[in-house]
């Protein structure tokens, strides 16, 4: 049975039109994977000697175990945003003579093979080797290694439990933030010292291998809980029945002031508000607004002026990047209809453009309080906002014409929790890094003002040539019309 599943997966992956189109992206992903593997290897081999130097009077193994708590928290956060439960289109399988439990076991088993579970091995195994080299007993090192591997798997399954609960909620990040926040809070305010608790637990297991049964039991518990969750979801009616929500229509007549693009604006706003997946990009926008708080409060970053535009682009452009890169795939479900209707492509695209510009403007206004950390930040954010409006928005629209992957907004697939993955963030990187490099170079050579002026100048150039650029972009869309219709009418 498993053999059939793997066969199906293989075909689904390689026969999708997406694969053939995005070879470059796949290569980029591999490159990133290699990068992280190298970083983890260095960490694995280097951690022990480094700790010895920094804390000469402490046992480095004990210190390392103290960090495990933080590593776990970061691991959970990363997984939540980047790892997806392997979606298998289960609907056709339900009527076939396959046991439901087999399907669920397969999905869960496949998730254990995720890159997120292999990556830590590149740090864990070298670290264990280093332990043995540094005269720790072999049994301690090996037990520690196996415990870590089990904990990685616990993280894997815990993440899906959290995601399952998040999927039910409007504000999908809430459970995770509460979970991580509570644990971190308990530790930070010294109520329960999670760091030493967890550290001691690991030390205890390493010294008494018999205690390894405890993490194994937790893993089994997480797995069986996941199993139960998924098995309950694996009925057709739970996806078909779907609560029929009453429509609450908001008054969107204010869009009329945008003239002939008003119908599209209204459609886009409804699109964003009425679909789970698009709605999450609104929440991401609000969370992105807080991104600056990671950097600006720390004096170390306050002197790194060259970083400001990067943060500015990220903060003011997060919606633009999130929403923009799926233009026009958001409308893929009814793209055929749009193409046979009496519409002007340019109006359709301009509506998306205005939406992105509005989002940048709104977030910029909301981010003004960052001025508390220095006026340069405000100026840099302003330049970044102009750059986003003039340059990045057009790039996003242009890039959209290469979009060949359908987004099924109506989909209520049992396992489709988030639908967005690592790829999404990687696409955004060049958009943020390019202006940062431009600014950093100019800042170093000619000073802050020149860098800012050039960014603003680039943005204004984009705005001035808006009409011309839009004409070019529209032509691109017209040229790839048939290809897009064809790709959007395929599933997967």
């Amino acid at each position, binding site marked *: 049975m498993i053999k059939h599943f793997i066969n199906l997966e293989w075909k689904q992956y390689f026969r999708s039109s997406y694969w053939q189109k995005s070879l470059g992206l796949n290569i980029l992903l591999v490159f990133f994977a290699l990068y992280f593997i190298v970083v983890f290897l260095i960490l694995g081999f280097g951690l022990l000697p480094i700790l010895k130097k920094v804390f000469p009077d402490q046992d480095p193994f004990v210190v390392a175990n103290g960090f495990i708590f933080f590593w776990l928290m970061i691991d959970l956060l990363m997984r939540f945003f980047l790892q997806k439960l392997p979606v298998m289109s289960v609907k056709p399988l339900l009527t076939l003579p396959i046991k439901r439990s087999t399907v669920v076991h397969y999905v869960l088993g496949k998730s254990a093979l995720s890159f997120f579970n292999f990556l830590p091995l590149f740090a864990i195994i070298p670290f264990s080797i280093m332990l043995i080299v540094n005269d720790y007993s072999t049994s301690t090192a090996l037990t520690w290694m196996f415990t870590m591997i089990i904990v990685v798997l616990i993280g894997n399954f815990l993440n899906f439990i959290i995601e399952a609960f998040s999927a039910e909620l409007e504000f999908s990040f809430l459970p995770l933030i509460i979970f991580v926040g509570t644990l971190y809070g308990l530790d930070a305010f010294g109520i329960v010292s999670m760091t030493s608790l967890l550290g001691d637990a690991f030390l205890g297991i390493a010294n008494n291998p018999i205690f390894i049964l405890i993490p194994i039991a937790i893993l089994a518990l997480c797995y069986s809980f996941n199993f139960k969750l998924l098995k309950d979801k694996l009925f057709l009616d739970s996806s078909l029945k779907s609560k029929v929500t*009453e429509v609450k229509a908001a008054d969107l007549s204010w869009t009329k002031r945008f003239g002939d693009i008003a119908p599209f604006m209204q*459609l886009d706003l409804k699109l964003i508000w009425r679909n789970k997946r698009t709605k999450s990009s609104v929440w991401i926008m609000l969370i992105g607004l807080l991104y600056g708080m990671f950097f600006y409060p720390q004096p170390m970053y306050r002197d790194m002026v060259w970083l400001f535009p990067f943060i500015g682009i990220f903060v003011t452009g997060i919606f633009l990047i999130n929403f923009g890169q799926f233009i026009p795939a958001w409308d893929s479900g009814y793209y055929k*209809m749009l193409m046979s209707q009496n519409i002007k492509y340019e109006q359709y695209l301009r509506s998306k453009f205005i939406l992105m510009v509005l989002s940048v403007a709104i977030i910029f206004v909301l981010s003004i309080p960052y001025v508390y950390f220095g006026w340069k930040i405000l100026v840099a954010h302003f330049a970044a906002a102009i750059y986003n409006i003039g340059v990045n928005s057009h790039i996003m629209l242009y890039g959209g014409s290469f979009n060949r992957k359908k987004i099924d907004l*109506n989909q209520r697939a049992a396992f489709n929790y988030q639908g967005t993955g690592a790829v999404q963030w990687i696409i955004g990187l060049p958009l943020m890094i390019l202006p940062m490099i431009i600014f950093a170079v100019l800042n170093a050579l000619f000073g802050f003002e020149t860098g800012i002026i050039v960014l603003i100048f680039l943005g204004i150039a984009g705005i001035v040539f808006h009409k011309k650029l839009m004409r070019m972009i529209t032509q691109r869309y017209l040229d790839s019309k048939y290809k897009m*219709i064809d790709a959007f009418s395929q599933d997967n």
Partner: protein
Amino acid sequence: MIYTKDISKAYNGTTVLKIDELNIPKGQSFGLVGNNGAGKTTYFSLLLDLIKPTTGSISNGEIIVDQSEDWKPYTSSFIDESFLIGYLTPEEYFYFIGDLRGQNKADIDALTSKFEDFFNGEIIGKKKYLRDLSKGNQKKAGIVAALIGNPEVIILDEPFANLDPTTQIRLKQILKDLAEKQGVTVLISSHDLMHVTDVCERIVVLEKGEIIKDLETNPATLKELEAHFAGNLESVQEEE
């Protein structure tokens, strides 16, 4: 109104549609029948410029469809559920289509009120999203949306499929009225020979992408069509 010349569509060298000449005059109700894979949907997709012809061209009111978009204002269509926007209510969807076709809300309300019978009280004012409607009700909404804005050409692919018997009969009346009283050119495809002969003045039979029959509907047409498709069956059995 619609003139097809030398059109063909091939995928990887396999020809799925090949029509030398087909002229559909204004105000005709035109039916397309054929087994699966005969090329009905391909023809409609070509007519709506959703796929590119391999050779030849179709013109709709003197306008060649893959060279200009000026045929769109007077042409409307409903091919399948992918023409619907799932996260809108039926009313919102009608208003949206109305906006695109230069109709205001009052026009739309006037139009939909004429179809109260047809909707059977299940579409308007239910505060449900289109994606939550049943297949049949989705189809009803899609068909009515294709009537918005007084189009001169209406293209419906398999309009009778998924509809309940009462609605099928009502739809037939609507389609007849469109062609007879309002001079609209109606193009439909169907697997139901009886419905097609009821509604259409002219029926074209496609087989493996080619026109093999072009009939003016008369009382004997249904028998002739049935004999034709049953004949297919016999010849297949003989081959076996």
